[in-house]
């Protein structure tokens, strides 16, 4: 139980320190971003002091983390709006997009992993080919994939909008056609990436004595799959899915920009550019919490199915 609580807290702490440290190392700061580089040194110093940026790093970190513990994510250093307001504007759109992408990713990932795993189990040539194809798919940058999809479906077939402008008021679900291309552009590379991670696990499970024994006994194959293979894959699959889900939430920037979809990813990239630490931290923590939540779920699954050793 302590492990269940302490580990995630420790990981979140490390993530926040790492993000804070990384932004700290970047040249320039939010005061300079606000003045656009066109203020005098004295004005800039006053702005910096007003934002509390003249305090030592540990002190700023402590007051940010302290605020977070009280449920206060602070205010933007650039616009002074509450971070919670800024996130609330962008989060729903990204959640919907990531959710749709995940709905495509999960079955696709499992199918690809199964394909890779069984190929590896059968013979090495097929394994090399399938594995190579999937790895290749995983390596295609999102931006290329997004562009190809847009040209194909929006340009040539004229079936889908080339940009995904959110409806003026209300949820993106009010105009679901805008979600298809960005969701696919996110899902396919993510699924391929996850399949690369999970494929080995599938092959390993198929090689296990109880599986080969069952096959030798003449147990129907579907039953072998459901009874003997899938339970062993539940935990590793859940882990991979947790990683992929967290990744989807934090890596939507490119796809959002290409399709003009106003979500969290663009906010993250922009806030790193303006050195808006409280906003960057908030988005990073959200992604970290998603990954951790998924990993905990995977652990729970592993415990339930007794496949702790399957890692």
């Amino acid at each position, binding site marked *: 139980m302590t492990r269940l609580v302490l580990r995630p807290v420790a990981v979140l702490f490390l993530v926040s320190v790492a993000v804070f440290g990384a932004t700290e190392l970047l040249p*320039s700061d939010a005061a*300079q971003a*606000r*003045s*656009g*580089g*066109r*203020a*005098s040194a004295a*004005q*800039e110093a006053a*702005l910096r002091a007003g934002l509390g940026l003249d305090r030592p790093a540990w002190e700023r970190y402590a007051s940010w983390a302290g605020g977070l513990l009280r449920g206060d994510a602070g205010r933007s250093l*650039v*616009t002074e*709006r*509450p971070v919670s*307001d*800024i996130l609330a*504007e*962008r989060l729903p759109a990204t959640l919907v997009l990531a959710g*749709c992408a995940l*709905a*495509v990713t*999960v*079955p696709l990932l*499992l*199918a690809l992993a*199964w*394909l890779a795993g*069984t190929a590896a*189990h*059968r013979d090495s040539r097929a394994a090399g080919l399938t594995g190579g194809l999937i790895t290749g798919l995983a390596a295609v940058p999102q931006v290329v994939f997004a562009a190809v999809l847009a040209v194909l479906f*929006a340009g040539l077939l004229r079936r889908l909008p*080339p*940009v995904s402008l*959110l409806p*003026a*008021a209300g949820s993106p679900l*009010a*105009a*679901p*056609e805008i*979600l*298809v291309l960005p*969701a696919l552009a996110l899902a396919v590379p993510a699924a391929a990436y996850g399949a690369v991670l999970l494929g080995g696990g599938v092959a390993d499970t198929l090689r296990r004595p109880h599986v080969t024994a069952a096959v030798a006994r003449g147990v129907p194959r*579907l039953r072998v*799959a459901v009874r003997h293979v899938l339970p062993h894959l539940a935990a590793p699959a859940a882990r991979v899915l947790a990683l992929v889900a967290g990744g989807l939430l934090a890596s939507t920037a490119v796809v959002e*920009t*290409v399709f*003009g979809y*106003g979500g969290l990813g*663009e*906010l993250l*990239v*922009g*806030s*790193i550019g*303006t050195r*808006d630490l409280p*906003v960057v931290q908030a988005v990073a923590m959200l992604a970290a919490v998603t990954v951790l939540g998924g990993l905990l779920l995977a652990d729970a699954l592993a415990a339930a199915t007794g496949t702790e050793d399957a890692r």
Partner: protein
Amino acid sequence: MKRLRAGAGVSALGLAVTALSACGSGDTAARPAGKTLRYVTVGAAAAATNDPHGGIPNQSDLVRFALMYDVLAKPRADGTTELRLATAITPDDKLTTWTVKLRTDAAFSDGRPVRAADVLFSLRRIHAKSAENFGRFTMFDVAGSKVVDDHTLELRTTAPYAEVPRALESITFVVPEGTTSFDKAPAGSGPYAMAGGNLQNTVLERKDKWWGGRPPTERVEIRAVIDPQARAQAVLSGQADVASSVNPATAKQARGNKAVKVVRRAGAVMYPFVMRLDREPFDDPRVREAIKLATDRQELLDKVFLGYGKVGDDLLTPNDPTSPTGIPPRTRDLSKAKELLRQAGHGGGLNLTLATTTSYPGMDTAATLFAKQLEPSGIRVKVVNEPPDTYWTKVFAKRDFYTGYFGGIPFLDVTRVSLLSSAPTNETAWKRPAWDKAYAEALATADPGRRKAALGELQRQIRDEGGYVVWATGDGLDLTSSRVADLPTGPGFESSFIERTRLTS
């Protein structure tokens, strides 16, 4: 195992398709045609703000403010002043005390009348945010300014300043006196009020009773989209009516397309090459002149702005009403450039490093092309491409040779931020007490004709002796559907005022 694999694979794929169609099905929301102007413009989530008195880097925020709030005055497309909330702006003899009369029929959306106290409160806020808004109101003594009555105020300037009306035709957005929180948008007295959405995606509805008359369009939707290509696609695919600031390449492609048109706003951008007068070799006026003479301006205009613009003549604000006229244009003269360099002791050649970035489309192309143009005169230029997020703090106003940017701002603004000795970012190190003095004298000149001539002469000096190579001014390019009419055509601030823009069908 083969059958097993195929079966699982197919059912999983089936699931994927089902999931996708669940995301992709449903009715397309009906769009009320003709009544709603869908306007897509530049805006980053990280900078979105409700505060109309700071830096306002997002055009999306500026357009929203211009619809929600009233300003004292605004520029017209031709650069002259249009009074809005103010009905008269008149000086005393010394040009240091100005009386601003306000219209009496303006009211905030909560019903309260707009009073002089609200105006002064807003002006003081703008002054307090000098560090963020390029010192927009530093010419005013806001503490010494005062409310005379409900619709009159008295503004003091720190020195004689004959161009107060032009100083007031900027972000003088009026919010109710005492507004301290900008977490939510304060009430405004402009032609539209916010009816829904958020800062990235705003729905505005017109007010029936605005002092300026009822706007022609019932609703305006403003969307902030960062990528110029995505903005253009929105119009090309019929998802939006206006895409502001598209790339020249997009405008060119749209030429044969009857469904769309391109609105050109002259003098909206320039990427001058900046030379620091206090560093070698640019401290030698012959070197600066040689570089200006070696530049092929037409080629730069054709390749960077694809011809959308006007060849530059090193005048920093050619679209300003005070810009001098009748100066013979500079033509490329390589032999004279070489001769000047030889006189300056660089007969054996000159090695320079020019910084550029990708903040605005074509800045990097401009630098590379410019470097190539200087080569025949014996100037070898190494171009370094710097990351855009630190360019304006680490390179701009610091390096001795780089690619700069001005976004269609008037001469008085350029002077304040970049030309006076006291300017915080005097990027060319143009520090000439005599020039500063002549500028102060011009602003103390009440006669408009004499003042214009004096300001024009100051601009000519910068052109001939300064450190700016202004090779062209590029047009602002807005892509609209063919049914959009009356989009603003001014270069800078004026283009944010879209309350008269309408749909013809």
